[in-house]
């Protein structure tokens, strides 16, 4: 029976091929427009470390001033003071830990004729490499000893290595960062992180090309891209007072991550953090109520995305795109009504020959589902095209914005994966069938007698 209904449906599609094609096209356009934005949103909220991320925690303490929170309603600043980061590092022994921040550094190529250029830089500690496990082409991260000895070492990305040394195996080579010579100890494979969870100031940002030890921050004069002070500074920041301001005041800028092997360790670490803030309160710091955060990677992404203006913008665009899809579906209903009206005579004959109303309804629904499926598949094709176009458009923009700054790509944002493809087809099927129910019901509720007369 189903086979017969299926073949009838296929024949019916073939008969009204133009209207069928239009219906497929309308659904496809709707899907093709809605999916690219959803893809971006999907990648923004992805957890790049689903397994290990449950053992990695971002630490935040609330050392903001008593008058108002860092951000409403009562969010602590997302970064620590250098003083607290050092205290945390010295006092406890988690499995691994790292303080870090983003900065811009200038590289002077050691070749005659080549000009200096800026690179996004991650200023961090050895724990970064053991916690986030980036893959190395050559060499590896520096070790704890290098942290404490303030060794002049660096890890660079494959692209930067290629640009400076013409090879990806540049371990042992030296490069001049902000005027100081650093020795390359490791070269990273191209690393795409979407979102860039360990930072999240800009979830769209590309992974840095240059990693230098946190201990060198003042020697290399690496002013953080993001820093805030809960109190008015005694003097505006300048090259001369960079070190004194960032070590003696309550300026926050260190993003602090720890690895805690299981829940009980995490619980005791949480307790220790509370006690630490208590001790500091006794010293007259931390005027606000206890408001520590210890978020694993998943929680951290969710927490930061909640207030991200990027995410808000993307959500707003998704709303617009889904409304567009809704308009497309209204249109599909129209097309299907016309289509089924055209085959009214035929329906009446089949009904007069004894087909049940329910069977006709099922036949029409099968027909609609086939159209919706085709629309969904064609929509994926259009979406791929749209993602490519959007990528060109936006990356051209950000490439302009970063002119002079060497960055990796954000290609990951614009890639469709299986779950998105599945969502597209599901969206097409649900939307298409919803659009088809009324026309199908309308078409098979015509009484055979009146239908026959109109032939």
């Amino acid at each position, binding site marked *: 029976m189903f086979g017969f209904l299926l073949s009838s449906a296929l024949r019916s599609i073939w008969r009204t091929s133009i209207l069928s094609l239009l219906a497929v096209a*309308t659904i496809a*356009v709707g899907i093709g*427009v809605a999916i690219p934005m959803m893809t971006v949103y999907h990648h923004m909220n992805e957890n790049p470390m689903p397994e290990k991320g449950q053992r990695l925690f971002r630490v935040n303490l609330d050392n903001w001033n008593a008058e108002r929170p860092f951000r409403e309603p009562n969010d602590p600043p997302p970064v620590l003071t250098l003083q607290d980061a050092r205290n945390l590092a010295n006092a406890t022994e988690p499995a691994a830990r790292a303080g870090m921040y983003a900065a811009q550094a*200038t590289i002077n190529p050691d070749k005659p004729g080549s000009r200096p250029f800026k690179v996004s830089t991650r200023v961090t500690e050895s724990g970064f490499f053991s916690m986030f496990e980036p893959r190395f082409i050559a060499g590896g991260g520096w070790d704890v000893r290098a942290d404490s000895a303030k060794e002049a070492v660096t890890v660079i990305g494959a692209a930067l290595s290629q640009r400076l040394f013409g090879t990806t195996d540049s371990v042992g080579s030296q490069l001049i960062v902000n*005027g100081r010579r650093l020795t390359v100890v490791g070269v990273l494979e191209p690393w795409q992180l979407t979102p860039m969870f360990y930072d999240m100031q800009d979830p769209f940002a590309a992974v840095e090309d240059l990693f230098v030890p946190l201990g060198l921050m003042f020697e290399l004069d690496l002013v953080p891209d993001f820093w805030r002070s809960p109190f008015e500074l005694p003097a505006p920041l300048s090259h001369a007072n960079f070190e004194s301001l960032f070590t003696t005041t309550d300026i926050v800028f260190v993003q602090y991550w720890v690895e805690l092997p299981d829940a009980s360790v995490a619980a005791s670490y949480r307790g220790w953090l509370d006690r630490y803030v208590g001790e500091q309160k006794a010293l007259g710091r931390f005027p606000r109520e206890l408001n520590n955060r210890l978020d694993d990677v998943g929680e951290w992404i969710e927490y930061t995305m909640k207030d991200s203006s990027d995410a808000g*913008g993307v959500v*707003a665009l998704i709303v617009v795109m889904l409304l567009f899809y809704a308009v497309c579906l209204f249109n599909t209903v129209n097309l299907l*009504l016309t289509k089924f009206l055209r085959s009214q005579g035929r329906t009446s004959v089949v009904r007069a020959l004894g087909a049940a109303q329910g069977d006709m309804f099922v036949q029409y629904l099968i027909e609609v589902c086939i159209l919706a499926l085709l629309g969904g598949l064609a929509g994926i094709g259009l979406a791929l095209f749209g993602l490519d176009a*959007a990528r060109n458009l936006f990356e051209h923009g950000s490439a302009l914005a970063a002119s002079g700054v060497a960055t990796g790509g954000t290609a990951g944002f614009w890639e469709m994966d299986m779950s998105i493809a599945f969502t597209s087809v599901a969206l097409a099927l649900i939307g298409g069938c919803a659009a088809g129910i009324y026309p199908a019901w309308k078409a098979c509720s015509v009484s055979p007698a009146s239908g026959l007369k109109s032939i």
Partner: protein
Amino acid sequence: MNEFPVILRALQRNRAAALLTIFQVALTLAVLVNVFASSDGYRAAVSQPMGIAESGLVAVSSEWIDVDGNRAPEGDAANAFHKDRIQRDMELLRRIPGVQHISATNGFPLSDDVPVRQLRIKRDDETSFASTFYIGDAEYARTLGLELMSGRDFSAEEVQWSSDPNIAEGTPITIVSEALADKLFPKGDALNRQVYAGDRLLTIVGIVNRLPGLHPLWSNVEMSFVVPGVRAQPVSRYLLRADGASLSDIVSAAESLLYGAHPQSLVTVETQADIKTRTLSMAMSTVTVLGFVSTLLLIVTALGCYGQTTFTVTKRTREIGIRRAIGATKGQVIAYFLTENWLMTTAGIVVGVFLTYVLNVVLVQGLGAAKVTLAMIAPGVLFLWGVGLLSALLPALRASFVPPAMATRTA
């Protein structure tokens, strides 16, 4: 128009089909008007005259980088070292053919990379005015082509060199943009009045018509102030004013001259127009995407109206025949379908205006879109009426060709 009741009854019979069109039109209006509202600010920012003749301006940045064997001296000697370096830089740049004026400054208009300061009338006033903070020398106004509305320009003696990034010890005077002057002193007596920038008390000696600030999309973009001075610092910035000569020649000449002078420094040269384009690039990409979606949306909606009218005409072929047989003219048949379509579009628009405001709430939060006003809705309404009528025209014409003999067919 005595056909109104007939049309209404006919529409009532085909409630479902009519509702479809109404919702489609409603959603389309809501999306269109909101897309327009969100991109309106961007477009205005792009086309807005910034009060400076952007076309002949070149922005030069040069950052001194210490390299082993070639280090700037430390402490007090640093000031003299950088002063000397900047003076020589400016001398080099001044000699490029086509360059008319040159000024040292701390940042470029609309670059999203200039400091902002809170200005207050009294030191501890609650209300403050966030304004873009520029530092310029005696050539600054001339280089930017600022029009002095009242007061005077800086004199060369007032321009002091300082290693302090804010020229805190400089001459306590300032030139402000007219927008800022009006905000600070609404009575229009800003000249020679005093204003606090942090702890510094500055006397307003000049008012210029316009001086764009930090970012084209910033609400305070028109509020800026300039204090006299030159920063003797590792990072130095210059603005060049060129006459008709090709800007790209000047850009490459400036680049090679500065690199030639000190190869290890980081030199960036671009036109002021490029800076604005770069600052706005993300917004412009969004506008492009939204514009594309709106165009597609209109096409889909037009197809929908076309399809709906075709559907009605097909369904009522016999009725049309009857009407023609009892005396309706072709014109009346066309008028009938166009009126029917117009009624549906209008109903859609009424619902749509409501939806527009609802969607606007979402978008104002998400995209920072502008609040929708009636002035924005009105063109959208007219446009949709036009689109609706145009797309119904073809099927309506086809209906008018239904022969009266159709009435004889039994149904």
